[in-house]
């Protein structure tokens, strides 16, 4: 009977990076960005490294929302850099958003997809990327102008350059091992998150 098979075309290298080490090094100073974190590990991680700051909107539901939420924010705030951190599971649910974002090509948006090949929040089931689906190829095929895959620490300098000095829309596929994200808890009240984000950015709710 049929079941998901590991892909035999273009096999990806084995993952070696620990997300707890690499994500703080890649983002370094989250306060330089307006941030949207997709459920679940990405939002937990952003919240942890930003110390629960108001400029992080952390999602704990609405799976698939992070990329287009970041697009709307980037279009509304062209003078600020916007950072979207999502996961492979969430992005697989909304692949078309990469096509939408590529057509709009906001120069102030960077998307980081933390790809651990698993649905970490629901019991660590394999995701499609764990079977070999390559989200960076999809992002490039959608027309995102700068696409980078980070497999090892050797790729970090180029990733940091894209995040911090990039002058255009960028997609970074950060391939990490299985394992829990940094997590000191996150705001679980979405309306409170909206109010404090807007107060921080706009000076009013």
């Amino acid at each position: 009977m049929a079941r998901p098979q590991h892909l035999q075309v273009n096999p990806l290298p084995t993952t070696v990076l620990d997300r707890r080490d690499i994500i703080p090094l890649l983002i370094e100073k989250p306060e330089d960005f307006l941030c949207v974190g997709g459920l679940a590990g990405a939002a937990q991680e952003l919240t942890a490294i930003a110390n629960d700051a108001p400029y992080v909107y952390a999602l704990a539901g609405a799976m698939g929302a992070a990329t287009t939420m970041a697009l709307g924010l980037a279009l509304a705030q062209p003078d600020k850099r916007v950072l979207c951190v999502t996961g492979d599971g969430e992005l697989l649910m909304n692949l078309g958003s990469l096509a939408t974002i590529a057509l709009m090509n906001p120069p102030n948006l960077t998307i980081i997809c933390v790809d651990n090949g698993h649905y970490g929040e629901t019991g660590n089931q394999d995701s499609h990327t764990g079977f070999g689906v390559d989200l960076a190829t999809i992002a490039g095929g959608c027309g995102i102008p700068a696409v980078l895959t980070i497999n090892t620490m050797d790729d970090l300098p180029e990733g940091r350059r894209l995040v911090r000095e990039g002058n255009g829309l960028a997609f970074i596929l950060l391939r990490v091992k299985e394992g829990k994200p940094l997590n000191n808890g996150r705001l679980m009240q979405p309306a409170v998150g909206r109010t404090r984000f807007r107060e921080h950015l706009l000076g009013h709710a």
Partner: protein
Amino acid sequence: MTSPDVTTGAITWPDALYDLLRKANVTQFAYVPDAGHRVLIDRSLADPDVHSIALTTEEEGISLLAGADLGGARGVLMMQSSGAGNCINMLSLTKGGRFPLLMLISMRGEFGEGNPWQFPMGQAVKPVLEAMGVIVLTASHPDEVIEVASAGLTMAFQSGEAVAVLLSQRLIGAKKFA
């Protein structure tokens, strides 16, 4: 900035609706294309002061406009009735986060519909949106579009509600099938 009808010189309701949205400072026009929204989409594409955002699926627009609100901008989401069902779980973000939302939905599967495929979703638009906490208004005649859309703008951007304005097939005309 209105486009008069070439034969009569009158301002048609789609042009008046676009002008109304712009006067309300709507700057993000997001859509999955439909013939019923042709004028709004074309005018947003021609307007240098707005973002015109083509979506691959309607739910992208729900989260897009929540992000616009985080950044202090107002938007509108345009779709055909068949797209309403694609938005349902994403409306968790709108309701949970108390984000304002204005949707314009061109209806199929109701008044005078000749394609049986359109009925299941067309007839379900109102109950499923209401089940997710969206307030549903309907415009069925050209002379009530601006009044209904104005009410929707106030409810969304002054009161912070999620509002859908249904543009009925009685208003936009039923598509002809041979």
